[in-house]
C-alpha cells in the first residue's frame, strides 16, 4: 500500500489493512509520527515519544502475527493532554504540571490500548480544558521552545476551537486517524465543528473519568474525534464501560457496540429543531449550512419538528457558575507540595501557595478559580451555586419535554465558524459563544458535531446532534447517514 494514502484511511479501513498485513503497525506509527513532525507548525502535538510508540506498535504487530489481535490492533491514535499517561508526560497544557509523569494510565487510555490502539503522543488543549480557542495553552508544542497557538488546518490564522483544539486540528490535518478529547461545556463538539471533523460526547458517566484531569467533575466526559461517525463509533465502543473501582460516577452499564445501528433507515425519524438555537447571534453562513443539512435529513426520510428549549439562554450563566465552582475545588490539589510546579522563592507556607499558584496557572484558569471561589463563599452560595443547581435540573427537564416530541435534536454547534487567532479577548464574549453546546452538557446528554458544509472563507461548519440519554448509537447512525449522503467529512484542508 502506498504510504501517501495511509493517512486518508478511516479507522475501520486502517484496522482491516493492519489485520490483513497490508501495512504493519510500526509502518503506520512511523507514517503518522513523520506527519506529526512535518506539520508541527500547527502546534497540535505537545508530546511525542517515538520509542514508546514504536514499542507499542511492535507489540501489536506481534499480536497480529500471533492471530490474537484486538479489534483496533495497530491503529495509531493520540490523546488530549488531559488524560494521564505512563509513556508520555501529562501537563493539562499548564505550567503547573510541566514535565509531570503519571505513574498510571487513565482508564480511557488503558481501554483503548487494550483494544489494540497505539499511542502517537499527546495533544494540545486549553489549560486544564478551560477555553474555546486553545489560546489558553501554556505549554510549548513539539518543535517549539515557547507556547504557540494551535492553528486551524483550514486557515492557519484562525483558532482550531477548544478546549480539544489540538485533537481537532490533528484529525483535520491527518496527523492521526482518530483521537480522544474531553467535553465539559462543548470542548469536543466546538473544535470538531471549527476543524470540520466528527466528534461525540457520550452520556455523562459512559466513559470513566479516572485519569482524566478534572475540570468540572459533574460535566467532564471523554469522547472520540475522527473524520467519520463510523470511526467515532469504533473508538467510543472501546472507550466506554463501567469502572466501579475507580470512578464512582461511571455508569453501571455494560460496554456497547455503538456502531450497531449504522445504516439503519432514518425513515420516520423525528428531528427536533429548537427555535432558541436559530435566534439572534447565529451567523448567516452557519445558519445556511445547518439548514442545508436539515434539508438533507428530510430527503433521508426524517421529519423536522419545531421544539423549544426555553432556558437555553440561562445555560451560559448556570454553566459559568457550576463549572468554575467545581474547578476551584478540583484545582486545589495543585499546591506545589507534592508534585508539579513550585515557586522557587517564598517566605513561608502561605507565600509558597500564593506564588506557586499565581505563577503556575494561566489567566483563564485563575479567572475561573476566582469565580468558583466566589460563588461557593458563605453568603453567596445560596444565591449563585444553589440557584444554578436548580436551573440545571430545569434545563434537563426541558430536554425531557422536548424528547416527547422528537427522537433527536439538531442545530448549530457554535454561532460562528472559527475566528481569527487573538481576535477574541473578551472572556464574556467567549463564554457566550458556548450557548448551543452548554445545554446538553448541563443535562448530561450525548451530543455530537458532524461536518455540515462550509461557510465564508471555506471554513467548516458543524451540525450538532443531541440525543436522549444512552442514545449514542442512534446519534452516530444519524451522523453516518448524513455522511453517506454528503462528502464534507472527507474533504481535506488545502496543503494537507
Amino acid at each position, binding site marked *: 500500500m502506498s504510504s501517501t494514502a495511509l493517512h486518508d484511511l478511516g479507522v475501520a479501513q486502517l484496522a482491516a489493512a493492519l489485520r490483513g498485513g497490508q501495512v504493519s503497525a510500526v509502518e503506520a506509527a512511523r507514517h503518522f509520527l513523520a506527519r506529526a513532525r512535518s506539520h508541527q507548525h500547527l502546534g497540535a502535538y505537545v508530546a511525542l515519544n517515538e520509542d514508546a510508540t514504536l514499542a507499542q506498535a511492535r507489540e501489536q504487530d506481534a499480536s497480529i502475527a500471533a492471530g490474537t489481535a484486538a479489534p483496533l490492533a495497530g491503529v495509531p491514535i493520540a490523546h488530549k493532554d488531559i*488524560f*494521564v499517561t505512563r509513556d508520555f508526560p*501529562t501537563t*493539562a497544557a499548564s505550567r503547573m*504540571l510541566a514535565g*509531570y509523569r*503519571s*505513574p*498510571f494510565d*487513565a482508564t480511557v487510555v488503558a481501554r483503548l490500548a487494550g483494544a489494540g490502539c497505539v499511542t502517537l503522543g499527546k495533544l494540545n488543549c486549553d489549560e486544564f480544558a478551560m477555553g474555546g480557542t486553545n489560546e489558553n495553552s501554556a505549554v510549548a508544542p513539539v518543535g517549539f521552545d515557547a507556547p504557540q497557538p494551535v492553528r486551524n488546518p483550514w486557515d492557519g490564522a484562525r483558532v482550531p476551537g477548544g478546549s480539544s483544539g489540538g485533537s481537532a486540528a490533528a484529525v483535520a490535518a491527518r496527523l492521526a486517524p482518530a483521537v480522544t478529547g474531553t467535553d465539559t461545556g462543548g470542548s469536543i463538539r466546538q473544535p470538531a465543528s471549527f476543524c470540520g471533523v466528527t466528534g461525540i460526547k457520550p452520556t455523562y458517566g459512559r466513559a470513566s*473519568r*479516572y*485519569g*482524566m*484531569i*478534572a475540570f*468540572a*467533575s*459533574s460535566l467532564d466526559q471523554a469522547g472520540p474525534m475522527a473524520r467519520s461517525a463510523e470511526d467515532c463509533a469504533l473508538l467510543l465502543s472501546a472507550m466506554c464501560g463501567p469502572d*466501579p*473501582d*475507580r*470512578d*464512582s*460516577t461511571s455508569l453501571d452499564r455494560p460496554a456497547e457496540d455503538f456502531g450497531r445501528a449504522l445504516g439503519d433507515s432514518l425513515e420516520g425519524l423525528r428531528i427536533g429543531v429548537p427555535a432558541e438555537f436559530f435566534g439572534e447571534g447565529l451567523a448567516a453562513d452557519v445558519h445556511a449550512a445547518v439548514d442545508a443539512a436539515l434539508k438533507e435529513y428530510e430527503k433521508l426520510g426524517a421529519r423536522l419538528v419545531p421544539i423549544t428549549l426555553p432556558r437555553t439562554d440561562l445555560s451560559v450563566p448556570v454553566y459559568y457558575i457550576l463549572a468554575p*465552582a*467545581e474547578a*476551584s*475545588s478540583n*484545582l*486545589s*490539589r495543585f*499546591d506545589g*507540595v*507534592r*508534585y508539579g510546579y513550585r515557586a522557587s522563592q517564598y517566605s513561608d*507556607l502561605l507565600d509558597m*501557595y500564593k506564588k506557586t499558584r499565581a505563577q503556575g496557572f494561566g489567566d483563564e484558569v485563575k479567572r475561573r478559580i476566582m469565580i468558583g*471561589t466566589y460563588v*461557593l*463563599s*458563605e453568603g453567596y*452560595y445560596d444565591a449563585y*451555586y444553589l440557584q444554578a443547581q436548580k436551573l440545571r435540573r430545569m434545563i434537563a427537564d426541558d430536554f425531557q419535554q422536548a424528547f416527547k416530541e422528537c427522537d433527536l435534536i439538531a442545530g448549530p454547534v457554535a454561532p460562528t465558524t472559527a475566528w481569527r487567532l487573538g481576535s477574541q479577548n473578551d472572556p464574556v464574549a467567549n463564554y457566550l459563544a458556548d450557548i448551543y453546546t452548554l445545554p446538553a452538557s448541563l443535562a448530561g446528554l450525548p451530543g455530537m458535531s458532524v461536518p455540515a458544509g462550509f461557510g465564508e472563507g471555506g471554513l467548516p461548519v458543524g451540525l450538532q446532534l443531541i440525543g436522549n440519554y444512552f442514545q449514542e448509537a442512534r446519534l452516530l447512525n444519524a451522523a453516518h447517514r448524513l455522511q453517506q449522503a454528503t462528502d464534507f467529512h472527507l474533504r481535506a484542508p488545502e496543503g494537507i
Partner: protein
Amino acid sequence: MTAKLIQGYEVVIGFETHAQLATKAKIFSRASTAFGAEPNTQACAVDLALPGTLPVMNREAVACAIKLGLALGSHIAPQSIFARKNYFYPDLPKGYQISQFEIPVVQGGEVGFYLGDEKKTVRLVRAHLEEDAGKSLHEEFHGMSGIDLNRAGTPLLEIVTEPDMRSTDEAVAYAKALHQIVTWIGICDGNMQEGSFRCDANVSVRRPGQPLGTRREIKNLNSFKYMQQAIDYEIRWQIEQLEDGHKIQQATVLFDPDTGETRAMRTKEDAADYRYFPDPDLPPLVIAPEWVEQVKAAMPELPRAMATRFVQQYGLPEYDATTLTQSQAMAAYFEDAAKACGAPKLASNWVMGEVSRRLNTEEIGMDAVKVSSRQLAALIGRIGDGTVSNNAARQVFEALWSGEGSDVDAVIEAKGLKQMNDSGALEKIIDEVIAANPANVEQYKAGKDKAFNALVGQVMKASKGKANPQQVNELLKAKLA
C-alpha cells in the same frame, strides 16, 4: 436537668468525637490503614491526590456508620451526601476534605450512662463519615516540615452531641460510655494514644436560666485524664474571665498537659470559609433498608438491649444491668457466672464488687481476670447453700485470685472457713454466752436492741466467725424469750 453550679455558674458541654473506623482499607482508596508504617508507604495515588484520581466509597466504612446508628438508636439516612470542605494545608493533599455537611448518614440518637447512681442521657445531633488528613511533622526537619500521608484518607466517624452535659464528670462519663459503645460494636479500636478516639469538647458557662454562653472548643483530648483536667481548667478560666468583667471570645483551644492549661489556637475571626459544596465525584450515599437489616443481623447484642434483657431475664436492677453491660467481656463474665450459680443478683454484686475492684486495683482488663466465672459461680453456690458466710467467701475469693488455690471447696476446707451449721454446737455456745453476759441479757430484756447485737457479736466471736448469723439470731431470740 438539675445542674450543680460552680460559683453560681452553670456549665454547658457538648462533644465532637472523631472515631477512627477499624476498616482494613481507607475510606476512598484501597490503601491500608494499619498504624505505624514508614511515612508515606501507605498512601496510594488517590491518597496523594495525583492528577486524575477519584474517590470510591469503601462499603466497610458505611457498615460501621450503620452499626453506630443502630447502637445509638439513631435514624440511618437512606440517602446522605458527601461534601467537600475546602482549605489549603500541606497534609491535606486534595486541598479539600471529603466529609458530610448538610445531610449526614447518622442522625439523632442518644448515649445513656450512669453518673454514680443517676442515669444520664446525652442526645446526639449526628454522626458523619469523613476522611482523615495526613500528618505534618515539624520537629525532625530543621527549618522544614515533613508530611506523612499514611493517615490521609483514613475513615472517621465524627460524632456530635447536643450541649447536654452539665459537669466535667458528666462529660468524661459520656466520653467513656461512647468509647465503650464503639469498641463494643467493633467499629473502632478505641486506642486513644494512637488517635483512634479523639474528643473535642465545646465548653461554655452561664448563669442559670440565661441563654448559652460563648463556647470555646478544646481540641484533641486524647486521654480521659487530660479531658478531666482540661475541662476543669477551662471552666475555671471562663468563670474567672467573666467575674473579672471580660467577655469570652469564641475560640479553638489546645490543652497543654505540661502546664495543665488551655490556650487559644485561633479565634473566630480567623475562621476559614470552607466553601462546602456537594462532592460531584461521589453520588449520594444510598443505604437500602435491606443493608441495614443485614448489618443488624450480624451485630452483637447491643449494650442497651442486653441491659434490658438482664433486667427482665435475671431480675437485676437497671443500675446493675447498665453497669454490667459497659463492656462485652464483663457482660459475658456476669452472664456465665449467673447461669452457672443460679443466683443472678449475687453474681451481679460480686462482679460489680470484688471482681471489678480487683481488676481496677491491678489495672487489668477482663481478659486477664484471675477468678473465672465458673469459680465465682461455685463460690456463690457455697454462700447460697450456707457453707460459707459472705465474709468467709471474700477470703476464699482472695485466695482464688492470688492463686493460693483453684478449687473453691478445697480452699474452704484448707482455710477452715466452713460455716457452723450444727445447731447443737451452736446452742452450746449460745448458752455459754448468755451465762457469761448477764448484764447484756438484762438490758435486752429491758428493751435495748443494742444489747442483743452485743450478744450476737459474742456468739460470732466464740464461733470464730463460722456461725451462721441468721441462725444465731433465731436461736438467741428463742432462748431469751
